[in-house]
């Protein structure tokens, strides 16, 4: 396989700073980005990507392509947690399986953003409405995960089932801060269009790459700190956390090929399928499935799948696209 894409991905500042963060933890440097700075960066990134998506959505309009793409996104967000749940059930109990499945059904916005920065670097276009797909894919897995728990939990589990209120769950799923800010910025971008874009451009565009780089430095620190948790996780989950993203990316690519997405969109779509949530879903799972062990679902998503996608996943998926699209 042609490794030049991987190398050119790795030699980007964001990926190198991700490595730097991991290295800091490994050599026990006291480097840290103190809270709430990472929170600020992640709010900024959601704001900027959402706004940009909205501005571009108004240019492209809501065409049939857009609707097909969004439908595909919804489909994957619902199917992935179901099929992974049954794989996980071989080794884990219902609660852990459902929580991990939900994690992998949802997405990681930072992985998406890194992939879009990678595309920009290579000069490959992508459509603004992929941000809408991003927003759409964040929540359904939470609902699917809970339904799975309700269906498969033992008697003892049924007790806790009575405890959570669906209205709260739906709010956590659809109005949590990431989804809310992303969708809100998208709508505002849509409403203000080209004019809004121009006044905000130095902020949302100029600083974007730099903030992403800084943020990935922090993600490197965070991911590396979680690595020690992987011992408890076991080889099964670690393999799961590498293989399932590849499988999901491939499914994503096949769907993208069928509905004739352009190259850039196809990459972003497969990255969405391949990525796993380490913020929104874990928060929701802790509240609604407290029986599941957070270090399992957080650490696999954060310490294995996230670095895998950032470092080798994104260029590999693009390599696949280059093979089939041409």
């Amino acid at each position, binding site marked *: 396989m042609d490794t030049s894409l991987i190398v050119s991905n790795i030699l980007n500042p964001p990926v190198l700073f991700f490595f730097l963060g991991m290295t800091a933890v490994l050599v026990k440097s006291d480097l840290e980005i103190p809270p709430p700075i990472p929170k600020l960066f992640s709010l900024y990134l959601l704001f900027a990507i959402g706004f940009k998506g909205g501005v571009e959505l108004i240019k492209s309009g809501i065409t049939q392509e857009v609707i097909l793409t969004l439908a595909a996104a919804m489909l994957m967000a619902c199917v992935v947690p179901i099929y992974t749940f049954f794989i996980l059930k071989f080794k884990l109990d219902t609660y852990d399986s459902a929580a991990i499945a939900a994690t992998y059904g949802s997405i990681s916005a930072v992985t998406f953003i890194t992939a879009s920065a990678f595309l920009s670097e290579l000069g490959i276009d992508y459509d603004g409405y992929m941000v809408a797909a991003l927003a759409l894919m964040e929540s359904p897995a939470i609902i699917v995960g809970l339904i799975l728990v309700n269906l498969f939990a033992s008697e003892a589990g049924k007790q806790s089932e009575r405890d959570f209120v669906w209205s709260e769950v739906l709010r956590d799923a659809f109005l949590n801060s990431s989804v809310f800010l992303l969708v809100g910025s998208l709508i505002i971008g849509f409403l203000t269009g080209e004019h809004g874009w121009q006044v905000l451009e130095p902020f949302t565009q100029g600083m974007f790459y730099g903030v992403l780089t800084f943020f990935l430095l922090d993600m490197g620190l965070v991911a590396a700190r979680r690595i020690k948790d992987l011992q408890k996780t076991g080889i099964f989950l670690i393999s799961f956390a590498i293989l399932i993203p590849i499988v999901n990316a491939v499914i994503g690519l096949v769907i993208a090929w069928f509905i004739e997405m352009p190259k850039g969109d196809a990459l972003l779509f497969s990255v969405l399928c391949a990525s796993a949530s380490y*913020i929104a879903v874990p928060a929701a799972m802790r509240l609604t499935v407290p029986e599941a062990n957070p270090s399992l679902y957080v650490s696999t998503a954060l310490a294995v799948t996230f670095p895998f996608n950032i470092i080798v996943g994104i260029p590999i998926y693009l390599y696949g696209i280059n093979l089939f699209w041409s």
Partner: protein
Amino acid sequence: MHLVKKIEIIANSFELAKILDSLDKSGVHGHAVIRNVAGKGLRDGAEDLDMTMLDNVYVIAFCMPDQLKSVVENIRPLLNKFGGTCYVSDVMEIRSVKCVASL
């Protein structure tokens, strides 16, 4: 000076709203909340204050001794379900015109 009870709760930040509700229901309307508390418990290893939002809160509430029973009854199910720790001790309140436990 007047004897009151001090309740200290350390729990994950997502439980905060539920904890404050429980306190309120038990008639304890005053409280103080310190956020961004790192920690290590039995359940899930170290909580690094990272993007995963697994940080803790430290809640302090002073209450009249006779409110304690109700607080414990309301808080315990939360701790049983979500984890977290709760401790009670005796303190003397310095009474002021606007003092808390006396009302």
